[in-house]
């Protein structure tokens, strides 16, 4: 009986251990799979074609620049909107708001994180885009700007909640010391608390931007999907097409194993690497901070 029990215990341990390692397995599997399906693109499509300015797969024109540019415009737009608003909201919730207001605001921001991106996209089509068209007198409201606004909404919950945590982790004694020196709370926030929490706030912004890079449905639905290389600030008010939207829109109709199929996987590899880089940098900041804290505590 006890033999059986120790055998069972061993079996369970191994099952648990394999599950623990599964995350590594899945990351490697995903990356290898993307490579396997994406790398043939380089042998099928000449590099000059991939780096050209036209994305028109029906005529075998696979220029990736318009898609990269489209993603870039929408992401920069979203960052410019979401970062200041997110940080200020986090500062208000963590430093200024009375406790009851905090208890109301925090769950509401979490609700925003829960709204599916397809619902945001739907809202963008029926309300936001027509409004932008009328308000800015544009030929169409389905523009990079509409995409930026919705992406800002998807990244705000991340930016707000992670920055908030960073602000909470600043010891109260820092603030007390600052106030005791006769500095107002307002100055304490901007010159003491926020600088002390800056790595956490930076991490928050990076994670938020990481989310905007990968966002698909909302962008697919509201940016108008025109693969044009953006030039200057005016491209914010014109339709663009992002990398994610291109995959989502075209993968369903493409023949498996064709050059077009391989190029779409190549775009997938690009997205994977960009988000990987952003997340690893953000994670290394968190890891380093934890190690430093452990060194100080031990």
């Amino acid at each position, binding site marked *: 009986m006890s033999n059986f029990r120790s055998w069972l215990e061993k079996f369970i341990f191994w099952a648990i251990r394999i*599950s623990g390692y599964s*995350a590594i397995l899945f990351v490697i599997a995903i990356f290898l799979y*993307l490579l396997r399906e994406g790398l043939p693109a380089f042998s099928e499509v000449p590099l000059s074609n991939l780096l050209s300015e036209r994305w028109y797969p029906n005529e075998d024109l696979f220029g990736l620049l318009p898609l990269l540019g489209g993603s870039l415009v929408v992401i920069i737009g979203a960052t410019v909107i979401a970062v200041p608003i997110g940080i200020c909201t986090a500062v208000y919730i963590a430093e200024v*708001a009375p406790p009851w207001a905090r208890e109301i605001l925090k769950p509401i921001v979490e609700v925003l994180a829960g709204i599916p991106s397809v619902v945001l996209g739907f809202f963008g089509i029926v309300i936001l885009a027509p409004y932008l068209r009328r308000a800015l007198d544009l030929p169409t409201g389905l523009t990079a700007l509409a995409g930026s606004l919705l992406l800002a909404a998807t990244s705000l919950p991340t930016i707000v909640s992670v920055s908030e945590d960073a602000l909470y982790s600043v010891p109260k004694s820092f603030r007390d010391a600052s106030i005791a020196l006769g500095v107002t709370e307002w100055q304490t926030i901007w010159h003491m608390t926020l600088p002390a929490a800056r790595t956490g706030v930076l991490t928050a912004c990076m994670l938020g931007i990481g989310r905007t890079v990968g966002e*698909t449905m909302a962008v697919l639905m509201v940016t108008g999907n025109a693969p044009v290389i953006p030039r200057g600030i005016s491209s914010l008010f014109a339709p663009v097409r992002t990398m994610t939207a291109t995959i989502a829109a075209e*993968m369903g109709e493409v023949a498996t194993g064709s050059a077009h199929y391989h190029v779409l996987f190549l775009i997938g590899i690009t997205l994977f690497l960009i988000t990987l880089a952003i997340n690893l940098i953000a994670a290394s900041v968190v890891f380093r901070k934890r190690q430093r804290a452990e060194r100080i505590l031990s």
Partner: protein
Amino acid sequence: MPKEIEKSAHSSSSVSRNRIQRAGFLLLLGIALFTVIPIFLIIGVVVIRGFQTLTPEFIFGFPYNGMKSGGIWPAIVGTIYLVLGTALFSVPIGVAAAIYLSEYAPVNRVTQIIRIAIITLAGIPSVVYGLFGLGLFVITLKFGTSIIAGALTLAIMNLPVIISTSEEALRTVPHSFRVTSISLGATKWQTIHRIVLPQAQSGILTGVILGLERAAGETAPILFTVAAFYLPQLPRSPFDQTMALPYHLYVISTQVPGMPEGIQYGTALVLLILVLGMNLFATVIRSRARARRQW
């Protein structure tokens, strides 16, 4: 008396400094409201324009007339199947991985690599999961566009949420519980199974529901792995295609010209109720568990 001290301490510069502070706080409040108001706007618009559509015929009916009439029952059922399928794959692996990280994993390089892998999984764009699911499950493993291919794809996407929230729940169980149990002669697994897991179960449940909530609302991973534009019957096996709520909303708001607005808003509302309902459920479980906690 404190007021007088305050007054006497105020020089003219501190009065203006106070004024700046008050203006600044007001500005911050305004920005915080600016974050919150669009949320009410989005939910408000969908609720007000959608709730008239929510009749029993709409919820339990099949679509007909090119989806311009009838209900969305196949899409609701499809999403429920997908969520259950996702849970079937992701909950056991996710909770086991969390147990490994919290109870067994040594502090070393490998464990750190596992954590980095989890962070990486969490950051991979949903549409890339869609590509992976299409390549591996639909084409290579020959599952075809099917519920099982979509559920497996969503399950991998969900793992990081379930692992990290469950691990956090396990770690909040005090260390002394484990020491006491081991000292009474229980084995490590008995301790985990009888002592640690029951104490952490509501936290784990919260994490699982939050993960599945994401799975219910995601569109990009199921675009090429499950979703059917229109099916006249309910799926009969895990290897069937199915309609799904988020994909249905995408289709009827972009691909079908002349779609009646009521059906669009109604579909969006049903999806919102499902997703935010799960969110609320998770929040209630969490706060209840916190109130009941005995340590």
